[in-house]
């Protein structure tokens, strides 16, 4: 069962990572730097629980808020460029964070052992769950609960005018400005919300794995996070969730192929992108489903 608990926990954490890229992508931009916010959230919340003895939830919140704040700081200059240039700029940010962690030494003696991040050797003893007697099952429930709350917030925001405005900016920035929309704020805001989602995911990741290394926040994380969104689609928050589940099923389901696994894995991704070029959950599909419900509701109203 522990295998299942671990899978669900990791899936939940990766949904947050996917949402983070998704939020930025809604405004029409691709970020390869969300692993930087993931790392910031992880280190900040772990430092809070391990070095300062802060309880878990406030520590997670702190990691989220610090990530969002740095998101605003990075967003203002970075979002002046677009497309491939932004992809490179955000990736550069991710590398700055990773290299910063390589020279981050903040250690302290707690209960007779030296704890805290030790540069490239990483950050050990993030033992909050163990110290407080959490079982793997309870950790899973916590992650599922937090991710569910985040998804509910996303679902509500997407029905709001703010959600429509973010999509309008993604569709056409000039037209959005001529609709009276402050495009810069919407883009920076979306970047900050995306950074917050990644920061929260990082905080959960830190406490789940108990050991952080700067190596864990490299380009591979950026690529998988973007892949979740490309495969999942931008139609709704279900897109990144579908993307994460797609890769989960692929990774775990193809284990029996042994050596051939990664080859088939790549082939399936290529096929999926050809079959559904705008992702599993694209705008047309969302609109179709919405209209089904809408006409259904209207039909029912007319009958009574």
């Amino acid at each position, binding site marked *: 069962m522990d295998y299942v608990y671990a899978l669900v926990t990791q899936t939940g954490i990766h949904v947050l990572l996917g949402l983070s890229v998704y939020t930025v992508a809604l405004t029409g931009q691709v970020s390869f730097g969300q692993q930087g916010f993931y790392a910031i959230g992880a280190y900040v919340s772990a430092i809070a629980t391990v070095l300062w003895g802060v309880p878990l939830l406030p520590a997670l919140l702190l990691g989220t808020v610090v990530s969002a704040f740095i998101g605003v700081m990075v967003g203002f200059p970075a979002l002046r460029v677009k497309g491939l240039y932004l992809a490179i700029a955000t990736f550069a940010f991710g590398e700055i964070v990773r290299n910063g962690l390589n020279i981050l030494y903040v250690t302290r003696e707690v209960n007779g052992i030296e704890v805290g991040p030790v540069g490239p050797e990483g950050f050990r003893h993030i033992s909050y769950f163990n110290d407080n007697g959490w079982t793997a099952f309870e950790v899973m429930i916590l992650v599922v609960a937090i991710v569910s709350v985040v998804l509910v917030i996303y679902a509500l925001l997407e029905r*709001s*005018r*703010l959600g*429509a*405005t973010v*999509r*309008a900016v*993604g*569709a*056409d920035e*000039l*037209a*959005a*400005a*001529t*609709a*009276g*929309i*402050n*495009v810069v704020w919407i883009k920076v805001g979306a970047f900050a919300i995306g950074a917050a989602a990644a920061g929260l995911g990082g905080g959960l990741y830190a406490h789940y794995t108990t050991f952080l290394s700067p190596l864990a926040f490299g380009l591979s994380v950026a690529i998988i996070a973007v892949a979740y969104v490309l495969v999942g689609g931008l139609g709704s928050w279900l897109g990144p969730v579908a993307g994460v589940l797609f890769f989960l099923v692929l990774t775990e389901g193809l284990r029996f192929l042994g050596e051939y696994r990664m080859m088939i894995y790549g082939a399936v991704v290529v096929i999926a992108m050809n079959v559904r070029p705008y992702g599993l959950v694209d*705008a*047309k599909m969302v*609109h179709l489903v919405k*209209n089904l419900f*809408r006409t259904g509701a209207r039909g029912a109203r007319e009958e009574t």
Partner: protein
Amino acid sequence: MLVLDQVVKNFGGIQAVNDLSFEVKAGQIMALIGPNGSGKSTTLNLITSVYPLTSGAIYFEDRDITRLPTYQVIRAGIARTFQNIRVFDNLTVWDNLWVASKRRPEESRLKSWITADRAARAWLNEVLKNSHLYDRRDVLAGNLSLGEARRLEVARGMATDPKLLMLDEPAAGMHVTEIAELVDTIRTLQQQGTTILLIDHVLDLVMNVAHKVVVLNFGRKLAEGTPAEVQADPKVRSAYLGTKEEA
């Protein structure tokens, strides 16, 4: 209402707009015409701060709007459409208007970001009905016909509750009956109190509806006056006859 004062715009060595001054009076339908490449669309882009001016100034209701960013120009009360239609393809018709709708002063800012209250709904539905798009409100804008998309662009502009509406070649690609509808729409908007700045190179449309016409050629003002005066002007005739063959 809208005053352009010695507006100059250079793109590199090319003078797209050169020393252009004119005024749009409140309540009027004014037209800006000229052959292709004469600087009409550039002028519109200068008014809405899509490009910065090289020199000169633009005033709207006695307020200097020269350096305001685009969204603030719009919020000051100027709406516009584009020559090549730019609706939000991935949003429904209703959402296209919703994102553009101006917040009423009594409406709370936070709440207006979340949901449309009864009054906001009523207002947007009225704009939709005026543009004959009410029945299409749940359709994705990307699935509209060309004529519908143009009407949606006008409706989106009207959702910002503008005092001045600028239409950039609204008749482009339309057939005769659609143009007749367009003329009706423009007249109705003007009668409801919206000032109109109309850009076109199709003289017929302009001559029918405009109170005043400014003619541009090579970025300069060639003539200004009533449609009849402008039509009789020999300079205008030569500018148009000279370019019509190319077109």
